[in-house]
């Protein structure tokens, strides 16, 4: 199953390099979102805690602009049937998930680097805690985005439905990740952040399990 999922990921990767369906949308959105925040802040000095919150706002809306492509592009091009004919549902979900995890990590690393360069107040005191929350937060974001993309792919108003459906599902993850980022900015120890870390890890496990259980029903019309 793993090699088949990897082959599907490679197909998506090559396809993305040729069509630039998601990369362009994500890159433009990152630049626009950070620029808008910069312009709106102007010469005001914003607090470190506010930068932590805004960091995840940029991540959430950037994810909404590009991560649905995993299934929406297949549906729009009419290639869903071809995939249904060559792979089991778990293979399809795994392949799409690998692609989205890599895309989320690349996208959020770029956001983090640009964000650090643009906002002086965004200084991480406990880098290890930030890195841990970043990793688990990204995994949760990728898993949720992938299953929501599968759900909305067959709907009519995909563009509207995706953020609307994603918001309540991602809310626990985003809130906890914001909290963990604030802890990392304040230099709070791992020990004091373990409750929030447990929430993020639990969220990832629950979403991953639920996604694999649900995907068969979503994939079959």
């Amino acid at each position: 199953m793993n090699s088949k999922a990897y082959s599907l990921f490679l197909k998506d990767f090559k396809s993305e390099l040729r069509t630039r369906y998601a990369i362009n949308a994500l890159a433009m959105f990152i630049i626009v979102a950070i620029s808008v925040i910069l312009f709106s802040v102007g010469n005001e000095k914003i607090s470190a805690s506010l930068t932590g919150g805004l960091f995840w706002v940029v991540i959430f809306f950037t994810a909404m602009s590009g991560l649905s492509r995993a299934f929406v592009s297949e549906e729009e091009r009419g290639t869903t049937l071809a995939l249904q004919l060559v792979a089991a549902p778990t293979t399809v979900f795994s392949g799409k998930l690998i692609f989205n995890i890599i895309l989320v990590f690349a996208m959020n690393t770029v956001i983090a680097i640009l964000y650090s360069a643009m906002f002086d107040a965004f200084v991480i005191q406990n880098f290890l805690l930030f890195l841990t929350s970043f990793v688990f937060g990204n995994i949760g974001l990728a898993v949720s985005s992938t299953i929501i993309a599968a759900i909305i792919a067959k709907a009519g108003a995909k563009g509207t439905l995706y953020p609307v459906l994603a918001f309540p599902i991602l809310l626990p993850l985003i809130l906890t990740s914001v909290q963990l980022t604030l802890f990392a900015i304040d230099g709070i120890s791992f020990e004091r952040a373990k409750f929030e870390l447990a929430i993020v890890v639990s969220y990832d496990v629950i979403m991953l399990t639920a996604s694999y259980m649900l995907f068969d029903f979503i994939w079959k019309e």
Partner: protein
Amino acid sequence: MINYSLEASGLNKSFGRRLIFNDLQFKFDKSGVYGISGPNGSGKSTLVKIIAGIIGASQGKIFHKLDEKEIAEEHIHNHIGFVSPYLVLYEEFTTYENLKLFADIRGVKFNQERVDYLLNKFLIFKRKDDLLKTYSSGMKQRVKFIFALMHSPQLLILDEPTSNLDDEGKNSVYEIVKEEGQKNIVLIASNEKNDLELCDDTVYLEKYKN
């Protein structure tokens, strides 16, 4: 001797209140060419999609058996080849790339010899390295046949197989249907008289409307 069988038992499909077919029964356990016929909207495409495991039936069940053992739903795709006008392959890849990536995703070895044979059979060998988006609709239809046949499936499902094809393409399809029908089960869903003339037995869907 074929060891594959396809059986429909009490199959019913409705979309909302609209009944498509009811109590549909058939069993194909010998190699040959079988037809599914009916007027437009009678449910031919719906039935072949149910057989291929793409959509579910409202009631009843389709049994795919290999050596008398039922094939698990998640493995059915490995035994099926499917061609239809609404099947779309990846236009940003060449024919060869498409076939290679589908073999990889399916988890089977890319059989270069068979692919080359099929490319020659369907007269597109010279264009195998061209992007699919540069093909005409008839040429795309030919590629779909290669996609369906490259893994040597025991059940070949053809929904309106000759649509978009010129006479040369139709002849290639008829040759392949006869060839495959000798050793495997070929299912043709069509209204075309020429397509149905190839069939040993035909299921008429209008009989299953009540």
